[in-house]
């Protein structure tokens, strides 16, 4: 149980700036997710917290104590690896007991703790087996048990579900969340899978190209993305982003004569921020658009994905923009037909094409 603070932490590999100076505070008992595409710096950041990687600059504090230059073993942190890293020549029980033996604890204490942890993770039946013989999910449970048994101040997890089958991932995800809640531990979790991040995180740190793009709750990053990257990255598929030209309360979009009237509550903000004929990006999520006979916007059906509960239409609005819209699963849409749709005014977002930042709405009152 601990608060982790990163102050201006950065990492360079030679000239390559893997993590640009970042500040982050992880609250006590929080489950925070570092999310981003490959190479964004999330794993490097996690490894710096654990001590497996040195920092090029900045400080890391655990409960106010400077741990930046402590050995990894001195930091009271447990690390769960993507490929489990279980000791292949030891049984499961020996694997789990190993960290406590390394600390020189008494036999009784070790047994007690191991039994507790095994109970939590329900792996009693695996105790005598060697890790090599277990399935991926079981191996991951053993890895979690090994981390749990130390009762550390914080858990660091590096894409622990990455190597598992898709169906397993769902159930393991729930297990990890349960564990976190039961143990009330501070957890830092790295993943590139935004579905996982949204499901698990109390807060999500979206990273890209060595920089934090946004820190927020799942709701915040989903409904109020700070910039184009977050809007695009979060959600499957990501937010639709169509660039047009702003002119007197409406956005003219290229192709097919589309003219989008900005909703009332955005009018003032946009009028103040933009001049006529400035570029403006309109963002809306697939579920916030609805097919309608008399819809404002029109496009041409490019593809149809059947998702069971709903259909996902790929709509070609012009030669650059294909937007995704959720549609009723019962209706058949044919490829090539023109489709009219509306965008829910409550859920639309606007972005500045030059800075790529979201335009935040000033509350009128």
């Amino acid at each position, binding site marked *: 149980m601990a608060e982790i603070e990163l102050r201006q932490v950065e990492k*360079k*590999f*030679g000239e390559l700036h893997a993590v640009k100076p970042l500040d982050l505070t992880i609250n006590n008992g929080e489950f925070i997710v570092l999310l981003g595409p490959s190479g964004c710096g999330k794993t490097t950041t996690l490894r710096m917290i654990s*001590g*497996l*990687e*040195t*920092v*090029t*600059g900045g400080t890391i504090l655990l409960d106010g104590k*400077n741990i*930046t*230059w*402590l*050995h*990894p073993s001195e930091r009271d942190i447990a690390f769960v690896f993507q490929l489990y890293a279980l000791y292949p020549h030891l049984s499961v029980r020996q694997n789990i007991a190993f960290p406590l033996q390394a600390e020189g604890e008494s036999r009784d204490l070790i047994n007690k703790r191991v039994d507790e942890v095994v109970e939590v993770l329900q792996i009693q039946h695996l105790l005598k087996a060697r890790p090599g013989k277990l399935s991926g999910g079981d191996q991951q449970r053993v890895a979690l048990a090994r981390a749990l048994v130390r009762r550390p101040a914080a858990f660091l997890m590096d894409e622990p579900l990455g190597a598992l089958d898709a169906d397993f991932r769902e159930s393991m995800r729930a297990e990890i969340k349960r564990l976190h809640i039961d143990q009330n531990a501070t957890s830092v979790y790295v993943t590139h899978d935004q579905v996982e991040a949204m499901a698990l995180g109390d807060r999500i740190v979206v990273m890209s190209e060595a920089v934090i793009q946004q820190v927020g709750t799942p709701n915040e990053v989903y409904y109020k993305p700070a910039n184009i990257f977050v809007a695009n990255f979060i959600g499957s598929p990501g937010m639709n982003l169509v660039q047009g030209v702003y002119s007197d309360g409406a956005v003219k979009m290229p192709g097919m004569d589309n003219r989008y009237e900005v909703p009332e509550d955005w009018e003032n903000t946009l009028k103040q921020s933009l001049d006529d004929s400035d570029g403006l990006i309109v963002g809306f999520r697939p579920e916030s658009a609805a097919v309608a006979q008399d819809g404002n916007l029109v496009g041409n059906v490019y593809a149809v994905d059947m998702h069971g509960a709903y259909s996902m239409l790929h709509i070609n609005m012009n030669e650059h923009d294909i937007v995704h819209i959720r549609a009723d699963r019962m209706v058949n849409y044919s490829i090539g037909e023109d489709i009219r749709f509306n965008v829910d005014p409550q859920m639309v977002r606007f972005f500045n094409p030059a800075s790529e930042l979201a335009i935040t709405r000033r509350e009128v009152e």
Partner: protein
Amino acid sequence: MSNFREDGPGYPVTEATRVDKVSPESRIFGKLRALIVVVIAVIMLIPVFVMLMTAFKARSDIVSSPPTVVFEPSLEGFVFLFTERAVVAKARQEEFKAAAETGELSLVDRVAFEAGQQVTGPSDYVDRLKNSFIIAGLSTIFSVGLGLFAAYAFSRFDVLGKDDLLFFILSTRMLPAVVVTIPLFLMFRQLSLNDTHLGMILLYTVFNLSLAVWLLKGFIDEIPIEYEEAALVDGYSRWQTFYKIVLPQAITGIAATTVFSLIFAWNEYAFALMLTSDNARTAPPSIATMLGRGGIEWSAIAAGSLGFLIPVVIIVFALRNYLLRGVTFGAVRK
């Protein structure tokens, strides 16, 4: 030192490394380890260095005790190595002395005379080196070439009795060469292969084949089979696949195997000594047998060993990257 825990190493760390590896203690240990390795390496090289010095020493320096480290270099060893000599008769000594003073004698003759001898002709050292080149070189080419095909077959095909065959091939490395020398001698004599280049090449090829097959099989096993499957689907024949896809990827392995085979064949002593006498004799036995000619000519032996060493050093140095891979390739099994 205790400041490290608070302040860190005092410079920005821009390499990928753990925190405990950057602490002052760890860095000192690292430097110490490097120093120890250098010291051990130097100690290992002392015999080579002694040999180098001996090749350039005059006779008196060689046998002096304690051994001299600083000395006047002399070409005596090399001259003795490359020439046949006879002792200058007392009667002719004056003649030679006069010729030496007027500068009529060549360098070689002058050096020989300083030891009281005159040159009668070239020695067979160069011929022996040539034999070594031919026999070792050709046998290496054959063993690696044949081994490559065998290794590919063992790796990719279901050969009948594969495990047994592989073990059998391996077992030929288990016997000391000397054990089979007598039967080989008799066989060679029967086939008139005694003291022939062909005989030695055949022999070395056979003995190197086991090493080549095992090493190359390891390397070929490492090449994912998907490349060949893709090529076969694309329409290449098995042979084309081998030639265009497998071979380029196996080049480092082939280089490593070649180096090992070459070193073995080049240094081979037992068979060369016992199965050759004059025509096909290679360098190793001939250098050793120089021991008995008119007193122990250490400088000549050292010079001969030096000459014998240099070609291999050059080749191994040129291929050192491949050699490193060959030595460590089996170390980490996925």
